[in-house]
């Protein structure tokens, strides 16, 4: 079966982001960028499905300017077969991203779409669910286990109380949680090979979708800083402070 993996270029998860002095947004100039960690898990899961003989072809897709080709090449090095860049300079809202992905799903007809559950920049956690709604497909979000069985996929989900397993009719949309797998590192030969794998570029404007913004970003500010605390010398002093100063225990 064909698996589609949408991926996003985001700030590297080790980098602490800074807010611009004029409070218009965060400052991403000269910041290390990477494939969103949850998207990387989605790529890895697709590759494992192919290694297990379940998946036959893996297509990675990313929406953004030319720079996101870097992350598509990473996906190709990890094991995707081909890639599609949907070219746009706009910073699109999740709904518009989902609408573009819907068109790709209609064109490619994948049996399974694997996405990260959220991107670590906007922290929205919504694109996969929106894509599922637009395509009318079932969704398995926050997946920690994915098992394809016949014309269904069983997805074990990380939920507030523990784990929940649901069965979805295929084709289906699955979003990945942290413990679905541990992504591999791309080997040097595979990185070289990825350079020759096909990467199609399509213009977002050609999809005939109204991509106007749904949200105005009015301002971005740094979070309130916590007052520096004190180092206590002993457990006794800690208990005394919590009782008499912080008054949080009695």
């Amino acid at each position, binding site marked *: 079966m064909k698996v589609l993996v949408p991926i996003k270029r985001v700030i590297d998860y080790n980098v*602490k*982001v800074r*807010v611009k002095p004029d409070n218009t947004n*965060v400052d991403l100039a000269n910041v290390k960028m990477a494939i969103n960690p*949850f998207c990387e898990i989605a790529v890895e899961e697709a590759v494992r499905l192919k290694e297990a003989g379940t998946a036959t072809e893996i297509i990675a897709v990313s929406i953004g300017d030319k720079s996101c080709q870097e992350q598509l090449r990473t996906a190709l090095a990890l094991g995707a077969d081909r890639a599609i860049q949907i070219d746009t300079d706009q910073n699109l*809202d*999740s*709904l*518009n991203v*989902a609408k573009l992905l819907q068109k790709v799903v209609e064109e490619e007809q994948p049996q399974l779409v694997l996405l990260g*559950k*959220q991107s*670590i*920049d*906007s*922290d929205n*956690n*919504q694109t996969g*669910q929106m894509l599922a*709604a637009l395509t009318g*497909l*079932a*969704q*398995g*979000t*926050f997946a920690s286990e994915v098992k394809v069985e016949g014309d269904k996929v069983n997805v074990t989900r*990380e*939920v*507030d*109380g*523990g*784990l*929940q397993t*649901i*069965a*979805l*009719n295929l084709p289906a949309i699955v979003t990945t*949680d*942290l*413990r679905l797998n541990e992504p591999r590192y791309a080997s040097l030969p595979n990185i070289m090979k990825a350079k020759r794998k096909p990467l199609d570029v399509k213009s977002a404007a050609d999809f005939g979708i109204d991509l106007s*913004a*749904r*949200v*105005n*970003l*009015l301002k*971005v*500010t740094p*979070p309130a800083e*916590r007052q520096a*605390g*004190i*180092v*206590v010398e002993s*457990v006794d002093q*800690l*208990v005394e402070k919590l009782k008499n100063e*912080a008054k*949080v*225990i009695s």
Partner: protein
Amino acid sequence: MSILVYAEHDNNTLKAETLKTVTAAQAIGGDIHLLVAGSNCQNVANEAAKVNGVSKVLVADNAAYEHQLAENVSLLVTELAADYEHIIATALTTGKNFMPRVAALLDVTQISDIIGVESADTFVRPIYAGNAIATVQSLDSKKVITVRATGFDAVATDGNAEIVALDNATDAGISSHVSDELTVSERPDLGAAGVVISGGRGMQNGENFKLLEGIADKLGAAIGASRAAVDAGFVPNDMQVGQTGKIVAPDLYIAVGISGAIQHLAGMKDSKVIVAINKDPEAPIFQVADYGLVADLFDALPELESKL
């Protein structure tokens, strides 16, 4: 102007976080209705009717909603949405699962995880794991919103709303529930606890989490964990506190053997008082702690338990 708030529950009890989401709805302003979608969920409906600030409780009690599958619940909420300008859910696993589906079906985007309300269309939300705070204005006619409960206080529960039974039974027929593997605990919910004590990689193994239990029992605390402890298999996933796990803001948060990665801080730094116990004086957790104790946790924890 009317607001529909989705009640989080397990068919037996209303989750405490819903009381905070109602406060967010009050800040927007309007007639507030609570929707209880489930199966054999009359008890939840009765609890929901007592939530202050709510004028009506809509109850969709049907087998199709027993497990609150996103495909089915999103159809129900979308059907009801015609009468509301704001549709709001708590940013817990149920709300996070089905609400974006509702938004897409209504052709609007979702404003996720708000921690503040500026006006009926302008909201405050954390981005980049809480390292930046964005103020955003929704340009859509209907607002679909999820609320981070820790951003709001709870409303009281001495109200008396009207309960209205719905006969909706939307079953999309494309997904089904197989099984649940839920953690059984006598302790309070992480999201609702006044005190949380969490262990990290420094705990070394799952067995050592017992050292936290005695303290948790004395303080009436919930037990949490860092991602490192969950990934290492010490404890189950539902204990994870952090950017992608549970977001907590208790009166007292005790971090034990946790270094303090930004992803963990994102889940707990709004706690009122933070205590860090770590043997590494350079651990970043000390930068957000009100009280830091540089000590070996295997000495400090038994002593702390005995002195509480």
